[in-house]
């Protein structure tokens, strides 16, 4: 009985506390930089697409909303011929971002993507690509990877040692 009365009193005291509600369209909540919202494809510092069409994001995606097709440039680098995200399926879990080996796919603090037409929720590559590096300003996959392409030979990458000649006996 006492606890019931105490509850009533404590609830009554809430008349004087401030509401937690954020009046959304007029006042917007602060979204952290690492908020998981709309997905973008970033470019490396040279302005090239970071995505190497490895398909890991599509494999990691729990709702299978990512579809892409690999193609090869003349210099030997890979890129997605098309890259499609169906945002009406996407659950913004961020697993694609975790899976991405090249920091190409990133989630942004933007969730306001309402559409009247369901087809408009399907974003193609030209909608996803941004002219920026996203959260990792200096990263360029083809500069740090050991892969040999027309742009760089083995051992020429950043922080990469000369390749070892395995057939040589010299120390």
């Amino acid at each position: 009985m006492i606890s019931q009365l105490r509850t009533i009193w404590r609830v009554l005291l809430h008349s004087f506390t401030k509401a937690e509600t954020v009046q959304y369209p007029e006042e917007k909540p602060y979204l952290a930089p690492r908020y998981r919202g709309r997905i973008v494809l970033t470019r490396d510092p040279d302005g090239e697409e970071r995505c190497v069409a490895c398909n890991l994001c599509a494999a990691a995606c729990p709702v299978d909303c990512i579809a892409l097709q690999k193609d090869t440039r003349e210099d030997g680098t890979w890129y997605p011929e098309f890259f499609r995200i169906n945002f009406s399926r996407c659950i913004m879990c961020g697993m694609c971002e975790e899976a991405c080996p090249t920091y190409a796919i990133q989630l942004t603090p933007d969730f306001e993507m309402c559409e009247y037409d369901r087809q408009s929720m399907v974003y193609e590559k030209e909608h996803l690509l941004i002219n920026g590096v996203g959260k990792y300003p200096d990263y360029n996959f083809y500069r740090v990877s050991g892969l040999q392409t027309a742009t760089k030979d083995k051992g020429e990458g950043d922080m990469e040692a000369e390749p070892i000649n395995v057939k040589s006996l010299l120390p």
Partner: protein
Amino acid sequence: MSELFPVFLALTVLVGGVAGAAILTWWERRLLGIWQDRYGPNRLGPFGIGQVLADMLKLLFKDDWVPPFSDKLVFIFAPIAIVMAMMIGFAVVPFAPGVVIIDVNIGLLFFLGMTSLAVYSVLLGGLASNNKYALLGGLRSAAQMVSYEVFMGLSLMGIIMMTGSFSLVDIVEAQSEVWFCFSQFLGLLVFVIAGIAESHRLPFDLPEAEHELTAGFHTEYGGMKFAMFMLGEYLGLMLISCMITTLFFGGWHGPVLIGEWLPPIVWFGLKVFMVINFFILLRAAIPRPRYDQLMSLGWKVMLPITLVNLVVTGAVLLWRT
């Protein structure tokens, strides 16, 4: 003029009751919001009061569906019955000196009878739906209301003894000096709790306990028929608040220490408003008891308290004479 006055008053109460119940739906949600640290409906119109109109519009345009497996006549009659019973109950409420639709010498019994009739609505609604949740809801409401009715009536007998009249006007006039909420404190306690159970409001809304019975007795109801049930519930809330004010808080009399510097009808309205707010506060604060807890509270706690109150009041009155 004097013959037409009750008719005019009855129409006013009819319109005012419906409008009041509609506004209460909004007011309750706003208050609950404040007590739960949020805003509640605040978008449409000033302070969100347009929400009432929006809800009404929505309910009016809903499909008026009668389940094919239900007992159709009873199904349609049930929501009408609760509104009718509650509305008729307002007939004996004295709003101010002379402002009462009918001042009958059995006013209190009339009120008790009308609130008891409201049980039929819930019970018939539950039975006619031909749905197990609705049936359970109806069953619970019947058991709950019948058992709470017992000491709801008995808790008022102290007042009857002290006043010597069943007329609500006489009861209010007997409180011109001291309100019955002091001398009949136990009666007030029991009557408030029984009143909540009677109007099946939270925390005693066992007939429609939505976490276990979907929506209880009105599971199958939708559109305007559902709205009628809601209207009946809010009318019941207002009626119980009016009765608590009339019986225990001096009706139209102002508080003794402050005096009567407001018109009687304003005092009455203010008190009813405070009691309604208290009911909403109870809804915000207290969790719903289990069904057996409700029953044992009724029969093992409330009934003995009422009987003690009855005996002590009788003894004091006899000792004074």
